[in-house]
């Protein structure tokens, strides 16, 4: 995008935005969040098949649109704005990317078309302990048996784990970290009650669960996968923060106290200006992460691909930046609404809760700052200096 979106990208954003405005209004969110599955299958089919959102970043020969990470990020940002409830992040972003990174072409052809078409829901099971993913943190095992493997272990906080037909799970065998696919019928899923009911979480227990190993999965793929997930989430977060800022701007101008609008008080004006600054900075970071990711080995011919450590640097940079801005904007939005801002009836808390759950998903801001700096230091000097 070279710092601005192309006309095509802007048009794509408009169509996504219009669709979500229509299909993911706040009343829709409120009714879906009260359900166990937490999403509307009809809307899911439409966005997958009519708008092609689930495959926008996937290869054309597998049914995708053949675009890249920037288009995926656009979908995520718009979903963040409308607080879309559904397995886009889990299935289209995380699980589909995991398969694309780790599968060979036969496996991809077998698995991806249905996921891209939205006909089959997948999820990605990585976390056991808290925080960012790393090879050392897994005790889930894969043992070869017959034509496949058996998986044992507990994966925690799996996004949309309760909605998936297919589970992509990261486990260890003698050779190290690998990626496996498991049928949802072969695991035990415990749905979790979370303060953010707009994103469904589950623990998944694997007990001698039969699995197929994806041919090329390993540490490098896991690292890039976290970059993809973090970039997507960062873009979702700046979208959410934008909605909150808009809401604070509109409410403070409507709301009169002492014969004047709240927005006319200078202390409020200055805080709104600061929020805008923070948000625009975080947006720049989120967009840049998407752009750098679009230049990663996954989307680019090897010759011109971005340095993998720079992909990681920008992804974690964006995740850390967006997390803090989203939460800060949410807190300020509640504060500027006053008493009404902490009622159930007012919508602000829905975004606030999503901000909270996004803050810790995939690791805390501090963990991502650390990850970013490690990646920055691992880059060749000329890259670092241009930074």
């Amino acid at each position, binding site marked *: 995008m070279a710092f601005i979106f192309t006309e095509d990208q802007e048009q794509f954003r408009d169509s996504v935005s219009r669709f979500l405005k229509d299909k993911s209004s*706040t009343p829709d969110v409120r009714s879906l969040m009260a359900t166990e599955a937490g999403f509307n299958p009809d809307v899911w089919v439409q966005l997958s098949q009519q708008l092609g959102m689930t495959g926008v970043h996937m290869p054309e020969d597998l049914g995708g649109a053949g675009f890249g990470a920037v288009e995926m990020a656009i979908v995520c940002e718009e979903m963040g704005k409308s607080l879309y409830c559904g397995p886009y992040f889990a299935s289209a972003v995380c699980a589909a990317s995991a398969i694309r990174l780790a599968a060979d072409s036969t496996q991809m052809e077998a698995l991806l078309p249905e996921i891209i078409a939205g006909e089959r829901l997948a999820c990605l099971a990585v*976390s056991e302990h*808290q*925080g960012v993913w790393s090879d050392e943190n897994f005790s889930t095992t894969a043992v070869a048996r017959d034509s496949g493997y058996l998986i044992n272990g507990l994966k*925690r*906080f799996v996004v949309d784990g309760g909605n998936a037909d297919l589970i992509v799970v990261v486990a260890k065998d003698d050779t190290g970290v690998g990626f496996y696919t498991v049928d949802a019928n072969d695991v035990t899923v*415990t749905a*979790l*009650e*979370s*303060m*953010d009911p707009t994103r469904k*979480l589950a*623990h998944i227990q694997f007990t001698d669960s039969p699995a197929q190993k994806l041919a090329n999965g390993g540490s490098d793929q896991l690292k890039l996968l976290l970059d993809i997930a973090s970039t997507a989430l960062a873009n979702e977060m700046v979208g959410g923060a934008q909605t909150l800022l808009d*809401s604070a701007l*509109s*409410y403070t101008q*409507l*709301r*009169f*106290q*002492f*014969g*004047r609008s709240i927005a006319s*008080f200078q*202390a*409020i004006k200055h805080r709104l200006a600061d929020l805008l600054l923070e948000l625009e900075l975080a947006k720049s970071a989120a967009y840049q992460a998407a752009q750098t990711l679009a230049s990663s080995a996954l989307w680019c011919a090897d010759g011109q691909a971005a340095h993998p450590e720079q992909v990681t640097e920008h992804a974690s940079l964006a995740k850390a930046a967006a997390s803090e801005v989203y939460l800060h904007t949410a*807190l300020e939005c*509640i*504060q500027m*609404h*006053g*008493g*009404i*801002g*902490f*009622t*159930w*009836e*007012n*919508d*602000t*808390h829905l975004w*606030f*809760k999503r901000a*909270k*759950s996004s*803050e*810790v*998903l995939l*690791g*805390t801001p*501090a963990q991502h700052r*650390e990850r970013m700096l490690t990646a920055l230091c691992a880059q060749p000097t000329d890259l670092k200096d241009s930074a």
Partner: protein
Amino acid sequence: MQSKQQIEAQVRQWLTENWDPESNLVEWRSMLAQSGWGAANWPEEYFGKGLSAEMSTAIEDVFAEFGAVGTAQTGVRMLAAVTLLEHGNHEQKRQYLKRILTGEDHWCQLFSEPGSGSDLAGATTRADLDGDEWIINGQKVWNTSAHHANYGLLIARSDWDEAKHKGLSYFIIDMHQPGVEVRQLRQMNGHASFNEVFFTDARVPRENIISTPGNGWNVAMTTLAYERRSFDRSRDNKRSKQKGRIFVELKKELDISNEPYTWYPQRAGRVDLIMQRAEETGAINDPVQRQDIARLHILSESAKWTAQRAKAAQKAGKPQGPEGSLGKLAASEVGRLAARVHTTMSVNDALLTGPDSVRDGVIAEILVSVPAGSIAGGTDEIQRNIVAERVLGLPKETRFDEGPFRNVQRNSAAKDSGK
């Protein structure tokens, strides 16, 4: 005038003769009201002894010695009492004060409105005189325990052509009448600690006005001043272990008045849990998290010491220093920082509320309760204005709400819930 020792001796004798943990609560308190010992700093004419506040504290100490139950003190009823004592007429005092002391009547405060939160004097609930009755229409909000109340302390606008603060009147309203509808208001943390109250042609007899029409804001100042003073009072009551029939009844009373406050500790961020959680989660071994834990410890200890400085100065009879006005702002900061530390320590576990949660979901409840701390009871913005203008003596905000109230700009809708 009698000495402190003499009075304490009298109270001791009276309690020795009369106190019985097996007595009926209302009967015992009626006796207290008749004797004057239950509200010794009130006038003798109105169930008191006309003694000083200091003497009154000494008497309470004697009651504590005996483990004897005192008059009802909880909830809004004491706001009603001080307001009536200062502004009520003789009939009103005789009619309401005794049942306040016995706890027979529950009261609620009807000040805030959806359109006037920080700006209480901007109330738009109407009071129109119709013969011998005031007709009340409008809506109030944030009314603690209104669903238990027999009576409400109501401010409403009786004159729209007067300036904002001069067109209000102050009423005692019977809450059990057809024109009054009380609805519980659910917060973002799921609790319902407050109510909304809707008035549709509700009626207040003419004699139920406190003071005169148009003088409501002055009367309200008395209520609010007392409310602010009692902000720091501890709400926990350790009497529950005492034995006797009267304590069973007392517990019921306390349960009602504490109902809205079950989630209040969460609002303060539960700093007391931090060190335990830091050990449970291993955060205590993480240098980065240690910094945040230390920041929180510094902030909460400093806030505690500041409150103690204010208290010690007050006790020593010194003029209040700036430290006295800062408690609420400090509490907001403590809450915010504590929520942040809890989040970083518990990571995804912080989100959980169900059976898989840590400590029965309290961490998640902290996170969704803390944001209320900087709003309820006066927003941080209002507190900063108060500190800037009253403590630091900085210029006041320009007024945009002078002249006849009907011309003052206000919210177009009574209720605009954003987005």
